[in-house]
């Protein structure tokens, strides 16, 4: 029972909640959305001597090729024809620009699946292709 003259010690939490919300907004806005477009289920091969990726290109296209040979563009399954059409559209929308295509193939994928992705790139006049691999496994 509260006695007369006894007071609870209360603190003003407004400032702390302010700061918490500011931090939440900051992290929500600065979180890299590109990382969400990467499929973690794909086990990339190791390339310890590869050149580390320091910066991302603006017009970078990431193609995922899973273990079963499925090709994904932005985590959406695409057929060979669809992929070819999409890549051609991107190339036509960006005339004169070198569009880097990065193929993230599972180490245990058969080459025929990778070939499917590469053929689509070549059809779209993209000749420069990069393969993604782990330099160091996280």
């Amino acid at each position, binding site marked *: 029972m509260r006695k007369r003259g006894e007071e609870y010690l209360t603190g003003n939490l*407004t*400032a702390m909640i*302010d700061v918490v*919300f*500011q931090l939440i*907004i*900051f992290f929500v*806005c*600065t979180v890299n959305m590109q990382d969400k477009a990467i499929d973690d289920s794909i086990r*990339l*091969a*190791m*390339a*310890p*001597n*590869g*050149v580390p990726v320091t910066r991302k290109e603006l017009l970078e296209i990431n193609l995922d*090729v899973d273990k079963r040979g499925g090709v994904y563009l932005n985590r959406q399954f695409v057929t060979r024809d669809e992929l070819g059409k999409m890549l051609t559209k991107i190339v036509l929308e960006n005339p004169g620009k070198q569009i880097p295509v990065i193929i993230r*193939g*599972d*180490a*245990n*994928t*058969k*080459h*025929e*699946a*990778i*070939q499917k992705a*590469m053929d689509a790139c070549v059809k779209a006049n993209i000749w420069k*292709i990069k*393969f993604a*691999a782990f330099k160091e496994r996280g």
Partner: protein
Amino acid sequence: MARQRKKIEHHPGELNLTAMIDVAFQLLNFFIITSHPVAVLAHLDVFRPSPDPVPVPRPRPPPVIRIEIFPDRMLLNDMQVTMPRLVDFLAAQASLDARKTVLIQCSQKSLHGQLIAILDQCTRLRMSNLSVISST
């Protein structure tokens, strides 16, 4: 007995600015994050030479190192090799001329990891002319 009324104390000239400062910070945060810096343009003068009227003989293209990858074996210039032997050969070639073209031909059933392993070795040896083709 007369009920005592609670007295509410009013402090003249006191205004709670917390909410307003909250909103101000939210807006500041939003604009800082969404704003883009203004691009600064520069004009760089270059000289474009006219084409040479006398045709210059082109140098002979460097020889190609041909590697074929199968699920169970590898061929180097049509000869079966193991990975250590292949690496030794590539190292020797790279020490002579790292600009040599390496043509890697993958069979349909070969694993992507095999290709990456060879590309990784080529990268280590600073061989940059790498081409990947697929056998039908």
